[in-house]
């Protein structure tokens, strides 16, 4: 990125001078690098400010086109566990668009049969994310793509958490539109991309100089784009080894905290009653654990120096339990006691071991202060208690 902030500072859209050519070459290389990661053609990549913008552009842009040219009130099928950038965008359109929010099972997976049943004459788009940002669940993209193709509807995929971490092939999965985020694959913040399949029509959201094939007017942030391209290239090269590494760390974390499935929960060395939320076959970099009888927020406060979160990054300001966990059927008290452990290629084994040990220590201490836990230890079934004030 550095040369593009110093010596190659030209505006890539200024075709009449050499500085501009240099910048353009950098951007076109990055476009090819991003395309190479998802097996698309470079001309199908539109640079944006991130996955939030990409998802807005994909959903609003495609539906605006469809409303204008094909269906007066199109129907969109999505899931209850999408990122807010999809859910809020669809909510904003609720007057003009009919939306079905698919339920998910206790692992966070959609039911493909329910998806098929939900398709109607006016269905225009299926919007399902690749990897969930809170629980790591990976949706069956290939099957969803097949259903979309068979029914001739668009398949929009928010793959911010998936691209660069797991193999995602837009052709194999028959994806029409896909959001990509720079900072989710170790690239710069404030840059992302939207994959727009050849021949898929979308209307731009902003008017201006017609950059990015008129899909996204505005001068391109050349250094950020070059950084995203390089991140995509490195991600492709390292994907397999990073995945194995992250998986090893995740297994280690879980093993230290809650032990193996076969281990007795009475074992002194592990924490009893810990629940893993989400799908253990999902992306391992996102481990979501519930520690019953402990408030997630109190646990975080008791772990200074450790960067973890309760809920999702964007909603952790609110003390509402995560809507993703609720959609899995997790009870509110368990959702309140959940913590997300994000593991990436820069995470070290020492950090994982230290975090796991500290979590065990803090949970044990906090539980000692909990009257509920006292009751559980005495063998009282809390679910059978009537807490009413009669």
């Amino acid at each position: 990125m550095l040369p593009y902030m110093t010596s190659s500072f030209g505006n890539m859209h200024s075709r009449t001078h050499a500085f501009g050519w240099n910048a353009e070459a950098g951007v076109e290389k990055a476009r090819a690098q991003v395309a190479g990661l998802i097996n698309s053609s470079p001309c199908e990549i539109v640079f944006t400010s991130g996955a939030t913008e990409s998802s807005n552009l994909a959903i609003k842009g495609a539906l605006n086109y469809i409303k204008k040219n094909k269906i007066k009130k199109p129907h969109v099928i999505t899931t209850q566990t999408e990122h807010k950038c999809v859910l809020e965008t669809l909510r904003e359109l609720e007057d003009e668009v009919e939306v079905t929010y698919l339920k998910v099972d206790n692992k966070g997976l959609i039911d493909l049969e329910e998806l098929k049943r939900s398709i109607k004459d006016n269905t225009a788009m299926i919007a399902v994310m690749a990897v969930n940002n809170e629980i790591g669940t990976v949706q069956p993209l290939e099957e969803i793509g097949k259903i979309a193709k068979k029914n001739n509807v668009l398949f929009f995929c928010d793959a911010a958490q998936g691209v660069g971490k797991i193999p995602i092939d837009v052709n194999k999965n028959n994806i029409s539109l896909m959001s990509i985020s720079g900072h989710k694959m170790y690239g710069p913040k404030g840059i992302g991309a939207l994959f727009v399949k050849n021949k898929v029509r979308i209307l731009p959201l902003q008017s201006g100089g017609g950059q990015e094939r008129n899909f996204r007017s505005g001068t391109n942030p050349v250094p950020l784009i070059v950084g995203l391209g390089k991140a995509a290239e490195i991600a492709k090269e390292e994907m397999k080894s990073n995945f194995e590494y992250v998986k090893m760390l995740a297994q280690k974390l879980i093993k230290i905290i809650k032990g193996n499935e076969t281990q007795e929960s009475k074992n002194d060395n592990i924490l009893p009653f810990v629940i893993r939320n989400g799908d253990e076959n999902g992306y391992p970099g996102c481990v979501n654990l519930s520690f019953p009888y402990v408030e997630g927020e109190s646990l975080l406060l008791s772990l200074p120096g450790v960067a973890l979160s309760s809920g999702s990054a964007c909603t952790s300001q609110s003390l509402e339990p995560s809507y993703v966990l609720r959609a899995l059927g997790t009870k509110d008290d368990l959702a309140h006691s959940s913590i997300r452990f994000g593991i990436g290629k820069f995470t070290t084994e020492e950090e994982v071991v230290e975090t796991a040990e500290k979590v065990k220590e803090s949970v044990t201490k906090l539980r000692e202060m909990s009257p509920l836990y006292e009751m559980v230890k005495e063998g009282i079934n809390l679910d059978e208690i009537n807490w009413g004030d009669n």
Partner: protein
Amino acid sequence: MIIMTSRQQILKLYKTMLRESQKFPSYNFKQYAVRRVHDAFKENRSLTDAKFIENQLKEAYRNLDIIKRQVIIGQLYSTEKLVIENIEKNKK
């Protein structure tokens, strides 16, 4: 550039890369660089195709330059030590 691919030279490159990686001021980048260098050499340990070895070596020299540059940039903007680094130090 013609690169000699003697065993000794490869070993020297490996050691240089590890040494340079150790200079990262950021704990996480340092550990990552060391791990990647280690894994890459291990992965390529049994290569026999001379042309391929030469390409891999060229790539390694390119990466060595990147490590050196990033170390300098890292030193320009180093940050406070992480909790884990102090724990590690106390252990030693």
